[in-house]
């Protein structure tokens, strides 16, 4: 192999990367053993290849470390970008916890005797009295000529604030209206108002009765 041939076939580079056939490699070695220019070329290509390999190796070793996220930092990063989702999530979590720990067990747990009172309108001289309890059961006469399937009932305090309201099934003819209010009432005066149902909405008042909740245990009437 002469020098021109070695240059034309880029023998130096091909030699270093092992891209020459064995007979070409032997011929090139025989040439560059005597050719100062070619041995310079081979040495330079070898130096480049060896250092390039070292550079790529270091890059490969560095990349996983750079790409590897720090778990805690990545997890909390969103919190510092915008605290609103974090606060909302915390509030929801607290609400759910309260419902699961306090509200739901409270509804499922046994209760003391329900206070019961029979109301027959505000025509009686004295208001019926009922002891404070966990809930209130009200029975009042019902004599409504329209005979609708549902009526609206509402429990109000003395200021007219609605404490509990909603539709209930109307009783059968000649039967009293029996209502259960799941409320804890403080001592004071309360009023139950019954209204007729008109297309799913409360209409005219049918009956109204008041009673008084006392702190002392009082025999219900």
């Amino acid at each position, binding site marked *: 192999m*002469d020098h021109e041939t070695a240059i034309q076939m880029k023998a130096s*580079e091909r030699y270093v990367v092992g*891209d020459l056939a064995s007979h070409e490699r032997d011929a090139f070695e025989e040439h*560059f053993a005597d050719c*100062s220019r070619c*041995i310079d070329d*081979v*040495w330079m290509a070898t130096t480049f290849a060896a*250092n390039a390999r070292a550079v790529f190796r270091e890059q490969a070793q560095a990349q996983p470390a750079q790409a590897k996220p720090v778990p805690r930092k990545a997890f909390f990063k969103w919190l510092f970008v915008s605290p609103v989702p974090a606060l909302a999530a915390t509030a929801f979590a607290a609400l759910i916890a309260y419902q699961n720990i306090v509200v739901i067990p409270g509804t499922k747990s046994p209760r003391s005797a329900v206070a019961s009172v029979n109301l027959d309108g505000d025509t009686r001289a004295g208001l019926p009295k009922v002891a404070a309890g966990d809930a209130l059961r009200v029975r009042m006469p019902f004599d409504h000529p329209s005979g609708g399937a549902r009526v609206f009932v509402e429990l109000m305090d003395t200021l007219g604030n609605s404490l509990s309201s909603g539709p209930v099934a109307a009783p059968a003819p000649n039967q009293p209206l029996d209502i259960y209010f799941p409320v804890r009432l403080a001592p004071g005066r309360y009023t139950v108002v019954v209204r007729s149902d008109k297309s799913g909405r409360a209409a005219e008042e049918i009956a109204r009765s008041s009673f008084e909740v006392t702190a002392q245990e009082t025999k219900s009437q």
Partner: protein
Amino acid sequence: MEFHAFDADYVRRLADGDPATESHFGAYFHKFIFLKLRSRRVSPEMIEDVRQETLLRVLKSLRHGAGVTHPERFGSFVNSVVNNVLLELNYKNSKHPQVEEDTPEPFDDRVDLDATVITEERKRMVAAVLVGLPGKDQDILRLVFFEDLDRAVICNRLKVEPDYLRVLLHRAKAKFQTAYIKRHGTGWLGSYSVLMWILGNAGVLGITIQVRWN
């Protein structure tokens, strides 16, 4: 145009034991034998063995043997001695394997082989050359040098012709060479040619040369 490194005068000075010529002889063929045996993945220890035995045999041949018939092809003569020494050592090692049964698996031998030519400064120069290349070219060089993939596979994967790969290697090496020479001058590469001229004309110039190669 040939760039002959050797002639009859060089061979004569070497045979006469001229220190500068001996130093050059050792340095030049130190590199030659390294490059030749590196391409064959020969271990660093064996490279050293081949080097010492080759240089010893060549000097013996010049001083006590038949010498060389074509001084201008002195490098080729040394190359043939290297081949013989390598064959003999391989034969000897095959008859008397030095590897014990419980010897662990060898690791990538290129790491050891290349350790002598890798420096932090050269890595920075190579990194600068690589950064200046298009991404696809960087990928090609990574597959060639780091992944050590077969050339045909690389060409097929990246849809390039084999000639493109050779040209890319040539250009990358040339850029590195330019940066290297800019930084260090021609170094041993250029000084070698100057030295050869001085050695060849030492008698005419009437000077005595003492050169120490590192």
